């Protein structure tokens, strides 16, 4: 795959309302830089993330999808992120099994206090996906024209 110097990946970050969404906010108020091509979608809990959302984000043009939730043990609803952890592990493994680049998907636990971690994670994820180039394997050509 050719890496385009100009290529700016579209990243969709699903962020749990109770932690990483606030973490993203904090990184903003602290003037920490992370790329503008990260689109944040707020969800009530990492456990709310239906695997279909991830696939549909790819369909609609995402090049990488990241889920940010509360650290295990800190879930606002006690156990939501534990379930999410199992689901995402299996889903990512399945995407890998289908030959879809495993680096395009990621889970990161970011608390409301970790603004710096949020920015660092995003920077690093954007960099990884930039190297991978455009999402070709889970694209929907109809959305590209």
């Amino acid at each position, binding site marked *: 795959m050719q890496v385009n110097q100009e290529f700016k990946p579209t990243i969709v970050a699903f962020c749990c309302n109770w932690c990483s969404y606030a973490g993203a906010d904090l990184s903003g108020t602290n003037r920490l830089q992370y790329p503008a091509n990260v689109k944040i979608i707020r969800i009530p809990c990492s456990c709310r993330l239906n695997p279909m959302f991830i696939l549909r984000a790819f369909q*609609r043009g995402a090049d990488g999808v990241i889920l940010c939730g509360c650290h295990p043990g800190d879930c606002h609803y006690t156990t939501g992120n534990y379930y999410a952890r199992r689901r995402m592990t299996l889903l990512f493994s399945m995407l890998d099994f289908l030959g879809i680049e495993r680096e395009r998907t990621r889970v990161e636990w970011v608390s409301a206090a970790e603004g710096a971690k949020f920015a660092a994670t995003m920077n690093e994820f954007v960099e990884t996906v930039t190297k991978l180039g455009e999402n070709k394997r889970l694209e929907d050509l*109809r*959305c590209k*024209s």
Partner: protein
Amino acid sequence: MKKCPVSQLDALFASVAARQKLYIPAGEAKTAAFQPWQEGMKLTDALNTVRSAKDLFFPQVENLVNFKVTGKQIEIIENRDPSEPFVVFGVRACDCRSFDILDKVFLCDPVDTYYKTRRENGVIMTLACTEPEETCFCTAFGIDPTDPAGDVSCWMDGENLYLRANTEKGETLLSELPMLSDGDAPAADKTVFDRLPLKNLPLDKFGGEHMMELFKYEKWAGLAESCLGCGACTFVCPTCQCYDIREFNTGDEIKRFRCWDSCMYSDFTLMSAGQPRPTQLERFRQRFMHKLVYYPSTHDGEFGCVGCGRCLQKCPISMNIVKVAKTLGEETT
């Protein structure tokens, strides 16, 4: 009649493919399909492809038109898939007959121009059968598998491929192929067709005049009871032509497309006002009544089935038109 040694088949395909796209039945026996010919591609061992040749004329999905919506304004953008001349080789007599049936649906007024364009662009080269499967029953519908129709009819024995043009399109195609010489096919051996177990499928009880009687027949419940409601039979059927019109919003514009649909699906006739075919029984009955009764009723007694045997092979629970015809046929006497 023309002939060409089997050893030169690749050259023949290459010559056809040099002028227009050529599709041949290729691939493993289990998954044979009409595929665009490429250097080195071999004809499949299977008698027939999984999906029929109707795909090439009535594809599973095709774009109809695009819309761009801005505020209260709508813009209509024609985006029909381009259709270019093509040749399809190796269509069996049963699939070839299916085009007569589809033509009567799509080419009656108002003409479906998507289908019509592909029909005009396509040249059908049929291939006579020599080794039928036990599931074949095209002869029950008066089809001669050893003498198929089409623009060009072909016969193949161990040594030669024999070709006969039946239409102007076929003549033109053959005249462009340098490797052909004159030669007549040896007479076909038809004895195996007499041994086909389903050749005497009872069909005289079907047709429009028996509609009400057959519709009310209580054996439908038993026939339909284990139907899964999947669309396997309809999608492999060469004559099923029901479709759905759907839209896909790309975020930028709206693509209206047509795709195959199946009368076996529960949402096929669902309306906000209700469901005229509420259970699988009605849906199952609709499919077979359509093939054996409704279609003949509006098309001079011609059945909507060509006896290709695909539904016999593909139904997950082995319920098929032969079992339906036999069950209903024997009881209404």
